[in-house]
């Protein structure tokens, strides 16, 4: 196949993917407009852009989820119509989604085979797949234990399974959507080594990401999308992070740095003592955890997703109660016998910006005004005992929207219609507006564009300066390091390390997150 391609056009390869004037609109929204993109064969091509810039739409068109309204797609020099993901696979395109499309209770082998069985008999298909995977593992240095259940594998290995799935289907073009969001820095490095090997073997890779550092580290070319258009495509070596960031946002960005404070003698807002939280399966989500957060201090919780940070937020916000141990929050003692529910927590001045804004933070089908009421519908300010004060609620929402620059500032618009960043700003506005004494923040900028990150960070620091005790959970190390006065690292439900914000460095934190500091030292 490679030989065929080389013979065309006198030895030079046609681009692996060429998009010509691709346009797509949804109702009034022009998601993609006249997109021209050449992805050279055998390169790693980065695509960056803010949320809602049209990256996902573009890749969905390429992978057959949507049809473009106009324009052409050329794969290896030939025009192709891609009407479904099946046709995309036939054209040699493989996709590794941000959220893996794997069956947890199947083995790696079964997952790879699924939908691409060579025979009606599982035994024959299995033997074929096993053979093919052995070759792939040798060729691309992608080793995964074939007979282990997906659910038992770490995230990095699950991602490799996704890559193997694509390669098993003969993909020579690989699209990766935000691949490092769930990985430790070390796992991300491993992924990038794999991508390098794939590239050397002639695979073309499209990398969609928020993280400009990854673009600089690994890509050959980079395209920037803004408001549905390609604003720049260039060699990565010819550009730098600041330029890319400006292209993405469309204006100059001030690099923010926040002062770190040390309030060792301030009184504590949160004080956790030997708390264990056991889930219904009997696993300890939090394992004998103890720490303090002082007033006027931001404590950042670093860690790979799934090591108990979510449970910690649920515990402190009253969604879960401690199985053993107790904690004090804003001078209220909470234990198994004296639990506080989320409504009570709000009453005592504990506000919570949840990690999963679409599941917890708002209701997608509600209007923005209704979502801005979430958690406060029983407050006298918003109801006459029985009926809701509709106009008061709308006005309050409008005020929040203006204060936090939520766009468009229309309280009647459906919550789901706002971009991720604007949803997040609305939730943040709702919680910060209540002047919290203790603020719990989970993933404040996940899926949020660069422009909004500035504002969100500024508001969180403002809360600290007002004497609020802030607990920040994030999987973004950059964010933790930028904001936190103190950093705690969680691993398997325990605090395995702590550092002062001013002394933190990425390598040490990364090793702590993998609980591998001792082995190195």
């Amino acid at each position, binding site marked *: 196949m490679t030989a065929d391609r080389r013979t065309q056009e006198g030895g030079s390869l046609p681009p692996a993917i060429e998009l010509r004037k691709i346009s797509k609109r*949804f*109702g009034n929204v022009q998601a993609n407009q006249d997109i021209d993109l050449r992805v050279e064969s055998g390169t790693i091509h980065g695509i960056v852009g803010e949320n809602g810039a049209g990256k996902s739409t573009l890749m969905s068109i390429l992978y057959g989820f949507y049809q473009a309204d106009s324009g052409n797609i050329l794969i290896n020099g030939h025009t192709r119509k891609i009407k479904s993901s099946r046709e995309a696979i036939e054209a040699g395109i493989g996709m590794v989604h941000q959220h893996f499309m794997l069956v947890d209770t199947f083995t790696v082998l079964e997952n790879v085979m699924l939908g691409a069985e060579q025979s009606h008999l599982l035994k024959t298909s299995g033997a074929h797949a096993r053979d093919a995977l052995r070759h792939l593992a040798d060729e691309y240095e992608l080793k995964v234990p074939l007979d282990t259940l997906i659910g038992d594998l770490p995230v990095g290995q699950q991602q490799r399974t996704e890559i193997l799935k694509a390669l098993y289907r003969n993909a020579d073009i690989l699209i990766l959507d935000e691949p490092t969001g769930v990985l430790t820095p070390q796992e991300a490095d491993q992924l990038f080594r794999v991508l390098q090997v794939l590239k050397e073997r002639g695979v073309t890779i499209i990398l969609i990401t928020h993280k400009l550092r990854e673009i600089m580290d690994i890509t050959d070319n980079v395209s920037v999308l803004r408001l549905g258009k390609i604003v720049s495509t260039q060699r990565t070596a010819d550009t730098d992070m600041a330029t890319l960031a400006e292209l993405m946002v469309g204006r100059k960005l001030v690099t923010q740095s926040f002062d770190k404070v040390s309030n060792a003698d301030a009184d504590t807002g949160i004080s956790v003592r030997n708390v264990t939280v056991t889930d219904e399966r009997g696993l300890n989500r939090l394992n004998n955890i103890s720490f303090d957060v002082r007033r006027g201090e931001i404590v950042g919780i670093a860690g790979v997703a799934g090591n108990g940070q979510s449970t910690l937020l649920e515990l402190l916000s009253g969604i879960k109660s401690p199985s053993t141990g107790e904690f004090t929050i804003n001078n209220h003692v909470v234990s198994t016998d004296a639990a506080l529910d989320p409504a009570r927590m709000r009453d005592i001045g504990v506000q919570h910006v949840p990690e999963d804004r679409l599941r917890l*933070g708002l*209701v*997608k089908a*509600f209007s923005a005004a209704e979502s801005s009421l979430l*958690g406060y519908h029983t407050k006298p300010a918003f109801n006459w005992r*029985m*009926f809701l004060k509709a106009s008061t609620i709308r006005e309050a929402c409008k005020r929040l929207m203006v204060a936090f620059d939520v766009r468009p500032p229309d309280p009647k618009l459906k919550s789901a219609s706002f971009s991720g960043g604007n949803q997040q700003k609305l939730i943040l506005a709702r919680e910060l507006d209540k002047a919290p004494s203790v603020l719990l923040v989970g993933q404040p900028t996940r899926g949020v564009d660069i422009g909004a990150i500035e504002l969100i960070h500024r508001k969180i620091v403002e809360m600290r300066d007002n004497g609020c005790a802030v607990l920040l959970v994030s999987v973004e190390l950059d964010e933790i390091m930028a904001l936190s006065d103190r950093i705690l690292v969680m691993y398997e439900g325990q605090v395995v390390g702590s550092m002062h914000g001013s002394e933190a460095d990425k390598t040490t934190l990364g090793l702590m997150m993998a609980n591998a500091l001792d082995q190195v030292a």
Partner: protein
Amino acid sequence: MNTSNVELPTWIEVVLIPLLNIFLALVFSGLIILAIGEDPIKAVGIMINGAFGYDEAIGYTLYYTTNFIFTGLAVAVAFHARLFNIGGEGQAYIGGLGVGLAFLLLDKHLPALLLIPIGILMAAVFGALWAFIPAWLQAYRGSHIVITTIMFNFIAASLMVYLLVNVLIMPGSMSPETREFDTAGWLPFMHELFAWFGVNITRTPLNMSFLLALVCCVLVWLYIWKTQWGYALRTAGHSEAAAVYAGINPKRIVIIAMCISGGLAGLVAVNEIMGVHHRLLLNFPAGYGFTGIAVALMGRNHPLGILVASLLFGVLYQGGTELAFEVPKITREMVVAIQGLIILFSGALALMLRPWTVRVWLGLTRQSAT
């Protein structure tokens, strides 16, 4: 092409698509009527005339409509909390038991002014109690509400047979019914009501519970969209996680929503027992509880939609009966088949035409844009 995320103007979603669905159902019904050698246009004419043509027809149509409003609202309230209440039938039945017990005890001793509110209250409370048990099992034991409410229909039916055959039957009677209640417990008929104002209309089963049904539509609308409890209910219905985050207890919502739902279904007994039969008897819910599911689906769980859908089903019931009577070749079963087609197209296949409508709409708007 994936069209589910394309937004259409409200009038298309709420008016045009349901009308197209009904039209399609009528086309298929027409084909069936053609197949047995009758004239479908004439059949539709008989049906419409049978449902609206004269005041007696209108009375019967609205009498059926009343039952559909109650059961449709019942399904809708539960649905806003993401609960599928299949047990309207049983809840209506047990609601009747509530009325029956109260009236057997009290009808000789209390005036109508007290007896009627008590009867309405008992119908709602007994219906709610019958829904409370599956609700509790769902909330605290994880038993699926669909399964338990279906089962409770059977339990209700068996219980009523036992009670009416062995306990509540009028002594010396051959049929399993209670004695007739004292007239103090009778809900006035509409023809009686009109007669008080000097207007004479034909005697029909339509009674004052129709007004109660209209009041319930308004109350349900206020409750779901205008009160803080309705807000909590909808939050829990859309996302249990968001409800917990907001400090709303989803288990309590399950119980409250099901009790309100059961109470509304129980009100069918107000129409049937207090309004029409004036005694407790077997099988009076006659499938209204189940049809309520189709009514709610068709009415998009909104009281106004339910009112319209109930009227449509009232027309189908009354006009269908007339049709079976007038045209010998179209049997009662054929009418049920036509009703089934309407339920199929406007309930189960409600969104079948949507992708097509979206394409036409996008085509039209694109042309006007250029």
